[in-house]
C-alpha cells in the first residue's frame, strides 16, 4: 500500500525535524568552552542549580499538599458549596504563572492596596515596618504553587474516587481511625497519582521563564537567557539547556514510573465511594479549606486584573491592542492547525502500520515495524521540554538553515531569499510544534483507540484507499478529539512566553509578550488587558476539563 509508506515516511520525517533542535542542543556538550564554563562555575552556576532545585522541589511539595487535601475533601465529603467549588478549584490552571506573579506584585508592593491599607491602619511610614517581598524566590514558589496545584488535584481526585468503598470498611473493622486510614491506605494508594501530578508541576516550574525573570530570581531558564543575550554565547546557552534537560529527565522518569504504578493500584471492581454529607461548622470549615487556594490562585488576582483593565479602558490604546490580539490569534490558529495535522498524520500512520503488522504478522518492507509508534512516543515527550531550551535549539537550527540556503541560492541563482525561518513565523511554529504536539497527540491517540480495528477492516474491504478511509471514516469519527486538540493547542500557544519572546519576528507582538514586557516596564495597568485576555481564553479548556472530571466521578 503506497499510502501507508507515504504516511510512515512523512511521520518519520516530521519527527526528525522536530527532534533535530534538541539534538543540536545536546551536541553542544561536545564543544565545551572551558573559559566560559570556568566563569559560570565560579560565579552563577551554583546559584542556578540551587535556585532551580529549591524552586522545583518546593513547588512540587506545595502542590502535593494543596492538591491532595483538596482532592481528598472533594471526593469524600459533600458540603455547602461543593458543586460550585468543583468548578472553581481548577480555575488557576487558566492563570499563567507570570501573570499571577505580576498581579501580586501590584497588589503587594509599596504603593499597592495591601501595604497602603496597613500603613493607614497602623499609621506607619516607609521604612518603619517590614513587609514580605513577593519579588523573591519564596514569592516565585508561592505564585507557582497557586497555579500548578491543579496538576496534583486532577490526578489525585481520580485516584481517590477510584478507591473501593470496601477499603474504608476494612479499616473500620480493623479499628483504624479516619486519619490512620488516610495515612495507611488512602494516601499510599493515591501516591503514584500524586507523584505524577507533582512531577508535572515541577516540570512546569523548571520550564517557567516569565515569573523568575520578572522577580529577578536566577534559575536555569533566566541563566540560559542571560548567557545568550547578555554574553552572546549561544553554545553556552545550549550547554546550560542540556543540564536543565537532565533535571527534567529525572522528573520524566518519575512521572512515567508513577503512571505505571498507578495502573497496578487500580482496583478491579470499583464500587463508588459514598461521600459523607457534612453540615454545620464542619461543612463550613471544609468549604473554606477548599476555597482558599482558588481564592488566592484565581479570584483575587483575576479581580485585580479586572479592575486594572477597567481603569485602562478609558486611556487605552485600543487599535494597538487589537493588533496584538490579531497577531496572537492568527499565530495560535496557524500553530493549532499545523500541530493537529501533524498529530493526525502520526496517529494515523501508526494505526496503519499496526494494521499492516497485524495482517502480515511482522512483515516489514521499507521501515522497521512500529517505527511510527516509536516516533509517536518521542514526540509525546515534548511537553516536558522547557520553552527556552526549545527556543535555543530552534534558533541554532534555523540560523544554520537560513545561512546555508542563502549561500546556495547565491552561488546558483545569485539571489538571497533572506531569513526564511528565523525571520518569519517558521521558527516559532517549529518550536510550538515541538512543545505542543504531545497535547494534540494525546487527543488523537485516545480518539483513535476508541475506533475499533474492525472499522478499518470493514472500510478497507468496501473501498480500498487509505486516504479515502482517513477522509470518510477516521476524520469524521475523530472530529471531537480533533476539535479539543486544536482548542488545547490554541490556548497553550496563546499562553506560551519564553519561546515566543525569543523567536518572534522583529516588532511582532503577542498578548503574552506584550503582557510580560509591559509588566517588566512596571506598567502594570497597561499590562492588564492582554493578561486578562489570556486568562479568559484559558478558561475555555479548564471548563471542558472540569465537565469531564465531574462526569467521571458523578
Amino acid at each position, binding site marked *: 500500500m503506497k499510502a501507508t509508506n507515504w504516511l510512515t515516511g512523512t511521520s518519520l520525517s516530521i519527527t526528525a525535524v522536530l527532534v533535530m533542535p534538541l539534538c543540536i542542543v545536546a551536541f553542544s556538550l561536545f564543544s565545551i568552552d572551558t573559559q566560559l564554563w570556568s566563569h559560570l562555575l565560579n560565579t552563577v552556576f551554583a546559584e542556578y542549580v540551587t535556585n532551580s532545585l529549591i524552586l522545583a522541589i518546593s513547588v512540587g511539595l506545595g502542590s502535593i499538599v494543596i492538591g491532595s487535601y483538596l482532592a481528598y475533601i472533594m471526593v469524600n465529603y459533600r458540603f455547602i458549596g461543593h458543586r460550585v467549588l468543583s468548578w472553581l478549584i481548577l480555575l488557576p490552571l487558566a492563570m499563567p504563572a507570570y501573570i499571577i506573579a505580576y498581579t501580586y506584585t501590584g497588589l503587594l508592593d509599596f504603593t499597592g492596596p495591601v501595604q497602603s491599607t496597613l500603613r493607614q491602619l497602623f499609621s506607619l511610614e516607609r521604612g518603619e515596618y517590614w513587609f514580605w517581598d513577593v519579588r523573591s524566590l519564596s514569592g516565585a514558589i508561592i505564585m507557582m504553587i497557586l497555579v500548578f496545584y491543579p496538576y496534583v488535584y486532577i490526578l489525585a481526585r481520580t485516584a481517590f474516587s477510584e478507591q*473501593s468503598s*470496601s*477499603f474504608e*470498611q*476494612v479499616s*473500620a*473493622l*480493623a*479499628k*483504624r481511625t479516619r486519619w490512620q486510614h488516610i495515612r*495507611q*491506605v488512602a494516601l*499510599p*494508594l493515591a*501516591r503514584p497519582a500524586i507523584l505524577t501530578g507533582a512531577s508535572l508541576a515541577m516540570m512546569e516550574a523548571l520550564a517557567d521563564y516569565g515569573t523568575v525573570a520578572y522577580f529577578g530570581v536566577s534559575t536555569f531558564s533566566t541563566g540560559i537567557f542571560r548567557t545568550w543575550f547578555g554574553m552572546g554565547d549561544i553554545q553556552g546557552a545550549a550547554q546550560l539547556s542540556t543540564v536543565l534537560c537532565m533535571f527534567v529527565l529525572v522528573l520524566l522518569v518519575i512521572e512515567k514510573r508513577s503512571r505505571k504504578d498507578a495502573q*497496578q*493500584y*487500580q*482496583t*478491579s*471492581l*470499583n*464500587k463508588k465511594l459514598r461521600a459523607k454529607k457534612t453540615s454545620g461548622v464542619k461543612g463550613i470549615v471544609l468549604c473554606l479549606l477548599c476555597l482558599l487556594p482558588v481564592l488566592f490562585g484565581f479570584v483575587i488576582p483575576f479581580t485585580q486584573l479586572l479592575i486594572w483593565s477597567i481603569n485602562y479602558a478609558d486611556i487605552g490604546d485600543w487599535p494597538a491592542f487589537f493588533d496584538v490580539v490579531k497577531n496572537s490569534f492568527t499565530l495560535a490558529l496557524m500553530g493549532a492547525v499545523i500541530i493537529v495535522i501533524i498529530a493526525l498524520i502520526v496517529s494515523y500512520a501508526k494505526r496503519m502500520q499496526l494494521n499492516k503488522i497485524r495482517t502480515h504478522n511482522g512483515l516489514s518492507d521499507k521501515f522497521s515495524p512500529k517505527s511510527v509508534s516509536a516516533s509517536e512516543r518521542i514526540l509525546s515527550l515534548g511537553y516536558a521540554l522547557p520553552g527556552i531550551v526549545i527556543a535555543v535549539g530552534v534558533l541554532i537550527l534555523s540560523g544554520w538553515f537560513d545561512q546555508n540556503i542563502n549561500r546556495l541560492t547565491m552561488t546558483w541563482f545569485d539571489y538571497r531569499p533572506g531569513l526564511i525561518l528565523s525571520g518569519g513565523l517558521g521558527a516559532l511554529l517549529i518550536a510550538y510544534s515541538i512543545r505542543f504536539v504531545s497535547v494534540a497527540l494525546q487527543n488523537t491517540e485516545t480518539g483513535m483507540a476508541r475506533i475499533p480495528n474492525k472499522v478499518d477492516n470493514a472500510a478497507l474491504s468496501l473501498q480500498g484507499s487509505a486516504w479515502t478511509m482517513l477522509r470518510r471514516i477516521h476524520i469524521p469519527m475523530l472530529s471531537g478529539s480533533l476539535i479539543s486538540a486544536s482548542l488545547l493547542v490554541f490556548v497553550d500557544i496563546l499562553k506560551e512566553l519564553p519561546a515566543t519572546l525569543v523567536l518572534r519576528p522583529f516588532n511582532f507582538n503577542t498578548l503574552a509578550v506584550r503582557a510580560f514586557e509591559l509588566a517588566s516596564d512596571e506598567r502594570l495597568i497597561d499590562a492588564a488587558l492582554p493578561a486578562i485576555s489570556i486568562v479568559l481564553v484559558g478558561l475555555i479548556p479548564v471548563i471542558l476539563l472540569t465537565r469531564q472530571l465531574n462526569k467521571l466521578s458523578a
Partner: protein
Amino acid sequence: MSEPMLYVSNLCLAYSDSAVLNNINFTLQSGDIGCILGPSGCGKTTLLQAIAGFVQPKQGAINIDGRCVSDANHFISADKRGVGVVFQDFALFPHMTVQQNVEYGLQDLSKTDRKLIAKENIALVGLEKFANAYPHSLSGGQQQRVAIARAVAPKPKLLLLDEPFSSLDPELRERVAVEIRRIIKKLGITALLVTHDQNEAFAMADIIGIFAQGACQQWDNAYALYHKPASRFVANFIGESTFISGEMLYDSPNWYVNTQLGRFMLKASQNATVLANAVEGQGVEVLVRPDDITHEDASPLKATVIDKRFRGANILYRLALPNFDEQVLCLAPSHHDHELGESFGIRMSIQHVICFK
C-alpha cells in the same frame, strides 16, 4: 445443643425512605454456615452491611453471641461487634503484601504475635509461598483466600461474606465454595454469606434463607427448600419445577388432592397454609419436581416428549401429559433415549406432595 450466634428479629432496612427489607427474622446457630440467597437487588447486601454495622437499621434488633449490637436504643460500631467481612471485590490493599494485608486487622497485638498469627492464617488458606507477594500478582481464587485469611485472623465470632464468588470464573466457583466451607468448618467459625447463585448456596451453607420482594421467604436447609418450599416463589426459585392442577378432596381423616397423575395424600405438616381453610373441590396447584417423575416402560400412563436436554448421566425431558393440557419435567437415566414426539410410560413417585392455592 449449639447456641444461637446470630439472632435477627423484626429487622427493617431502608435506603433513604424506600424500604429495602421488612420484618426479617432468623437465627443462625453457632458453628453453622448460613446463606442469604436471593435475586440481585433484593437487599441482601444491605442486610449483611447492617449485621456488620455499616448500615443502621430502621427498626428491629440484631444480636451477636447473645449481645444486642443494634436495636432502637443501641448501635454498636462495626469494630466492636466481633465480625469479619470478606468483601465482594475482596478489598485487598494493593500496596501491601499478603502478609501485611493479613496483619492489618491485628493491630491490638504485639508485633511478633501479629506476624505469627498472620502466618498461621496464611498457612491455613494454603498460601505460605505467597506471603510476600502483592495481591495483583495472585489469581482471583488466591486473592479470595487472602481476603478470607485477613477476615478470620482477628478471630471474629461471625464471618460475613458478601457475594464471595462473584469475581471468580464460573467454572471455579463451586470448587472454591467447597474449599472455603472446609476452611470455615475447620476454624469452627459461624459464617453468613450472601449470594444470588443457588449452587454456591448449596455447596457452602448448612442453612439458607430465600430473600425476595423485601422479605425472607423461607429460612431452612437445602433439602427442605427443595422438597418442602413454603411458597410458590421458593418452589420456582429453587431447582426446576412444574405445576399441575389438582382438586382438594377430604377422606377422613386425611385431605387428598386429585390430579391427572393420580390421587395423593397431603401431609398436614407440609401444607399448613393450604389446609388451614381448605374446602372440598377447591382447585390447587401441585408442585412436581423432575425427580418426582420416573421413567417406567410398563406404566399405563404415557407422556409425549416435547423437549429434551442432555445432561450426561441424565436426560431432562419436558413431557406433555396425555390430555396435552399440562406439562411436567422428568429426569430420566441417560440410556432411556427418546426422540421428540415419542411417548413413554411414566410413574409419579412423589414423596412430598406440596400444594399451593
